[in-house]
C-alpha cells in the first residue's frame, strides 16, 4: 500500500480520539535540532467539523486482536487495514513539521499481536524522532493497557504526554462492550504513569539534569452515550481522575455509531449537546471551584440539556443571589452566570479605581444578558424585580434553547482556555 493510502486509513481510524492538544510542555529546541513545544499549545487548522488540528494524529496500525463493540477497529469489523512502518511515520512527521502543518505527533495504535509488541513499535518511532532526527516538537502517545512497565517507562522519558483511554465509565459497561478489557488493566498503566511523574519530579529537584518524564502529564477519554451511564457517574469518575490520578485533562467524545450491534443504543446523531454539558461541568470542576456533588445528585443524575450546568446550579441556589458586583469576592463572582474567569479578574481589577456601573460591566465583556438576574450594581438590580428561579429560568431558556448555538459550542480543545471560559458564562 502507498504511504498516502495508509495515511488515509490510519487517520480515519484515529479521528474519534478527540484529544489533539499540544499544550503543557515547554520542551526547548536543541542545537542543530528541529522543533520545540509551546506551553499554551497551537492549533494549525480546523476541520469541517470545527475541531482544531494541532498534532498529526494517526494510528500505527488498525489491525486489532481485540473486539470492542463500540470501536471501528474491532477485529470482527470488515475494514480496510493498514500498518505504518516506524520510518514512514518519522518521515511524515518531520516533513509536516517543517512546513508548519503540525505541532508534533499523536501516535496511537490498535493492539497488534500483543500489547508489548505494539508498545515496542511505538517506542521505535519516538526513539528515532528524538535521538536520530533530533526532533524536539510535541509528542503524545497512547500507553497500551497490558504493556510491561519497563517499556512504558522507556517511552515516557521521550514523550511530552501519555494517555490511556478509559472510554467506558463503569465496569458493567466494559463487560458489555469491551469484554477483553478490565478496569484493572486500564487503571494500572495510569497509576504507573502517575507514580513515575511524581518520582521524576522529585528526582529533578535533586538532579536538574535528569530527563523529564511525560512533562505535559496524562489525559484520558470517555465515550458519551454508548452506554446508559448517567452524567453523575461520569462526572464522579472525572473528579476522581483529577484528584486521584493527577490527570491533566479528561476528554469526552460523543458516541458516533459505528456498528449496529444490539448491545449499542440506536443513535441517529452523536449526543453533542450532552458532550458539551460535560465539558462545561469539567471546566467548572477545574477552574471554578465546583465539586461534582454540587452539580448533580442521585435525584438528578443528568444535566439539563436546555441550560448550562453553572446557570442550572445558580437557579437551584437562588437564595445566594443577588450578589453585589462591587463587593463580592473572586470565588463568588466566578459563580455568577455570565461571568467567566477573565471577566471576574477584570471586575476585581477595575473596581479598584472606581465602583462599577452596569454599563461598565458591558464594557468589561460580562455577558450582562445572563448576569443581570444574579447581580446588583451599587445596590441596584437591573434584571427582573423578582428572584423567582422558575421565572428566571424561563427567561434564560427562551434565549438559549436547543439552538444551533448550543451545538456550536460543543467541540473545542484546550488551547482556547479563555474562549471556553467565556462559553461557560
Amino acid at each position: 500500500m502507498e504511504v498516502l493510502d495508509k495515511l488515509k486509513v490510519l487517520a480515519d481510524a484515529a479521528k474519534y480520539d478527540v484529544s489533539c492538544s499540544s499544550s503543557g510542555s515547554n520542551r526547548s529546541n536543541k542545537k542543530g535540532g528541529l522543533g520545540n513545544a509551546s506551553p499554551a499549545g497551537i492549533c494549525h487548522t480546523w476541520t469541517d467539523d470545527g475541531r482544531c488540528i494541532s498534532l498529526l494524529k494517526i494510528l500505527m496500525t488498525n489491525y486489532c486482536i481485540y473486539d470492542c463493540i463500540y470501536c471501528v477497529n474491532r477485529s470482527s469489523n470488515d475494514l480496510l487495514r493498514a500498518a505504518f512502518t516506524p520510518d514512514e511515520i518519522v518521515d511524515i512527521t518531520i516533513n509536516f513539521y517543517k512546513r508548519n502543518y503540525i505541532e508534533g505527533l499523536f501516535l496511537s495504535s490498535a493492539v497488534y499481536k500483543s500489547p508489548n509488541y505494539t508498545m515496542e513499535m511505538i517506542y521505535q518511532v519516538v526513539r528515532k524522532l528524538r535521538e536520530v532526527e533530533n526532533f524536539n516538537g510535541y509528542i503524545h502517545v497512547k500507553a497500551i493497557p497490558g504493556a510491561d512497565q519497563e517499556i512504558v517507562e522507556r517511552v515516557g522519558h521521550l514523550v511530552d504526554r501519555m494517555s490511556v483511554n478509559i472510554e467506558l465509565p463503569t465496569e458493567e459497561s466494559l463487560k458489555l462492550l469491551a469484554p477483553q478489557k478490565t478496569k484493572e488493566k486500564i487503571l494500572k498503566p495510569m497509576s504507573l504513569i502517575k507514580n513515575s511523574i511524581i518520582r521524576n519530579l522529585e528526582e529533578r529537584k535533586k538532579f536538574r539534569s535528569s530527563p523529564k518524564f511525560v512533562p505535559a502529564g496524562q489525559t484520558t477519554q470517555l465515550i458519551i452515550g454508548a452506554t446508559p451511564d448517567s452524567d453523575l457517574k461520569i462526572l464522579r469518575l472525572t473528579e476522581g481522575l483529577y484528584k486521584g490520578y493527577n490527570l491533566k485533562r479528561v476528554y469526552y467524545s460523543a458516541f458516533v455509531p459505528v456498528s449496529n450491534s444490539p448491545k449499542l443504543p440506536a443513535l441517529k446523531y452523536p449526543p453533542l449537546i450532552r458532550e458539551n454539558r460535560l465539558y462545561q461541568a469539567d471546566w467548572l470542576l477545574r477552574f471554578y471551584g465546583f465539586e461534582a456533588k454540587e452539580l448533580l445528585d442521585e435525584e438528578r443524575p443528568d444535566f439539563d440539556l436546555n441550560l448550562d450546568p453553572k446557570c442550572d446550579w445558580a437557579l437551584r441556589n437562588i437564595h445566594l443571589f443577588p450578589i453585589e458586583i462591587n463587593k463580592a469576592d473572586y470565588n463568588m463572582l466566578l459563580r455568577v452566570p455570565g461571568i467567566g474567569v477573565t471577566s471576574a479578574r477584570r471586575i476585581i481589577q477595575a473596581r479598584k479605581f472606581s465602583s462599577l456601573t452596569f454599563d461598565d460591566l458591558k464594557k468589561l465583556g460580562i455577558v450582562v444578558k445572563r448576569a443581570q438576574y444574579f447581580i446588583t450594581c451599587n445596590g441596584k438590580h437591573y434584571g427582573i424585580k423578582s428572584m423567582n428561579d422558575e421565572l428566571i429560568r424561563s427567561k434564560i431558556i427562551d434565549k438559549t434553547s436547543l439552538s444551533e448555538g448550543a451545538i456550536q459550542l460543543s467541540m473545542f480543545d484546550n488551547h482556547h482556555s479563555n474562549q471556553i471560559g467565556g462559553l461557560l458564562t
Partner: protein
Amino acid sequence: MIYYVYDGTFDGLLTCIYEAFYRRENPDDIVPMDKLEENFLIQKLFINTDTEKSAKVYRTIEEKISVESLKRVFYAYLSELPKSGRNILKYLRLGFKIGRSIDDNLANDVVRTIDKISNKVTREKHLFLGILRFKMLENDILYAALEPEYNIVGLLAPHFSNRMSNENWIIHDVKRNVAAFYNKKEWVIRDFTIEDRLVLHEDEEEYEEMWQAYYKHMAIESRKNLRLKKNNMPMKYWKHLVEI
C-alpha cells in the same frame, strides 16, 4: 487640527510622543507618512525620527509605567489601525500619571481601547503561529507567504527562529511587501517582493497531497459544523492554506 507625521517606524512614533510632551502640544493624531490623507483643514507637522529621543521615551515607559505597557504600545503601533497614534498618546499621558497599575483601569476608555487593539494583534499573531504554511523550495529554503491584517511578521520571526533554528526560511508578508529572512543564525526584516515564480522542491507536492488527504480524513461527517470552523479560522485567512 494638528497632525504629527512620522516616517512609519516605531522610533518615529516614539519621537512624536517625545515632541508632544516636550513642546506641550496635543496633536489630534500621529500618523505615518504613507497613511496621510490630503485634508485642507489639517495642519501637518513632520517630525524627524531621532533615535536618542525615541530611546528616552522607550526607557521612560519601561520605568515609569511597565514593560507590559510598552508591549501594548508596540502592538497598537503594529495594528496600523486608524487613530492608533492618537490613542497611544492619550494612553501614555494617562500612564505617566498613574504608573504601573494603568492596565487594570479597564473602565477607562483609552485603556480599554489599547487593551482591545493589543489583544487583537496578539490573537492574530498566535493564529499565524499555527496557520503559516511553508513550502520547501528547490534550494531547500522554506518559504511562507501571508497576508495578515496587522503587521506581525516581526512578531512571528522569533518563534520560528527557535523552532526551526537549523533551516533557512523566509516569512513574506505579500500585502506589505516585507519579509523576515533567517539563515540558521539570525533573522532580519527587509522590504521584499518576488518577481519570478518560485521553484518548488521535487518532494513538495507529495507532502502537500498527504497533508490535504490527512486534513480531509480528520473531519467527522456526522459532526459537520462549518460555522464553528469559520469562527475559529475566518475565511480571510484561507488563501495561503495548503489544505483548503
